[in-house]
């Protein structure tokens, strides 16, 4: 007989509930739960069970674990990766910085992209636009220098200086 699979959550009891989730990139994520953990995760309660959240939550926690090796804790709110494993939610806005490394892979599979596009609070909008513009200008400048087009490089450099000043002020 095959060796019994253990519960992915408590890692103590044998698993009795098995899930396989196929992501949009045809990646298989397997999840095995024991009765108690399935119940604790709300599997038996149709009002609170959110399969996707559970799968994604576990996936991310594993990624975070692999990425850092030791258990990380958010310096601001004390939230740990074990807490993320339990709930699939983060503790505070700062957690996104704390767990950034582990989260990036997860965000890639979960969303269309990993960089926000769209609305920003008005107070930050200008800074955000300026940062984007600066990046574009710097790329153009590098290209102009490479092409030995010093006239447009000088113009670009001046523009970058002005914009850099504005961005620094509004920060």
């Amino acid at each position: 007989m095959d060796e019994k699979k253990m519960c992915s959550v408590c890692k103590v009891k044998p698993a009795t509930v098995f899930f396989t989730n196929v992501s949009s990139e045809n990646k298989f994520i397997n999840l095995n739960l024991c009765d108690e953990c399935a119940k604790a995760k709300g599997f038996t309660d149709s009002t609170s069970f959110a399969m996707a959240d559970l799968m994604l939550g576990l996936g991310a926690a594993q990624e975070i674990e692999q990425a850092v090796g030791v258990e990380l804790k958010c310096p601001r709110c004390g939230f740990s990766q074990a807490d993320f494993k339990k709930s699939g939610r983060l503790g505070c806005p700062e957690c996104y910085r704390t767990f950034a490394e582990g989260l990036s892979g997860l965000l890639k599979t979960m969303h269309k992209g990993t960089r926000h596009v769209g609305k920003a609070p008005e107070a930050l909008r200008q800074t955000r636009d300026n940062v984007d513009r600066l990046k574009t200008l710097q790329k153009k400048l590098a290209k102009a220098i490479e092409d030995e087009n010093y006239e447009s490089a000088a113009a670009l450099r001046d523009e970058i200086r002005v914009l850099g000043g504005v961005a620094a002020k509004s920060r």
Partner: protein
Amino acid sequence: MKDIHSFLCSPAESTQRHGPHDRIVMSSRVRLARNLRDFAFPGWAKKPERVKVLEAVLPAVSALPEMSDSFCEAMDNLTALDKQLLVERHLISREHAAKNVGSGLVVNRAETFSVMVNEEDHLRMQALRPGFQTREAWQAIDKLDSALEKKLNFAFDNELGYLTACPTNLGTGIRVSAMLHLPGLVLSEQINPIIQSVNKLGLAVRGLYGEGTEALGNVFQVSNQMTLGESETVIVERLEKVLSQIIEHEENARQTLLEKKAQGGVQPYWPCLWHPGKCTQYFLQGDDEPAFVPPVGRGHGIVPRYRTFAGG
């Protein structure tokens, strides 16, 4: 400010569900998730911190011009029945109904805006419109959000956008959804391939009360799943395109069924649509069934508009 009972006893005009394509699209909704920069998310925050957030958010929301005539209450002041009614009117989620101290709610009189405080995120604000009006709902909630960001410090990151408790809502924090009544596609057995192709486009199809609920009464909710990497406008437009196609398929399916009926081939479920008095058995299939049978009959001029459906 209204008290809960006068509010719940007299549903707003907008809940009568007259809107573009209301034969099929019962309502359109856009929800935005927002959090305050300096506080832990509600699921992790301790009670005093949640109360602090509630005390900061409730007055800020109530003071908005859109909310001038509104109902505003802490969740612990509502009874289980009040909460149930609010869930059924899609003004709060079932998760929010389970909340008590430290959570709250603001709903305007017209029931076109509702803001849940300390649900999964500090703010979950939605614009609800009758019929197919996803774009209008987005414009309305965008305006409300812009007014609110002047008073509250939202957690925002240049790379990741609006920061939310669950990474699935990160970025725009937007969930655009429409509630569709699709008996034609269900009866003609076209619904499953349609759900599959909608899923392939990165959209979710769910039951009446969102995630994990059944499609009672042939009512389906279609919504976006991804929130990061695309702008709100792109997300709204994609949903609009998909909805237009579903509407077209449903219209065709209904037309075919009507033609079949004219030829004497009556579907088992179909009599409900023009003999409401005989349809008790269908109405009893689920608690939510009665409300959703008449729109089809009404839409096609089969059942008089205001005739009640519980048999008379």
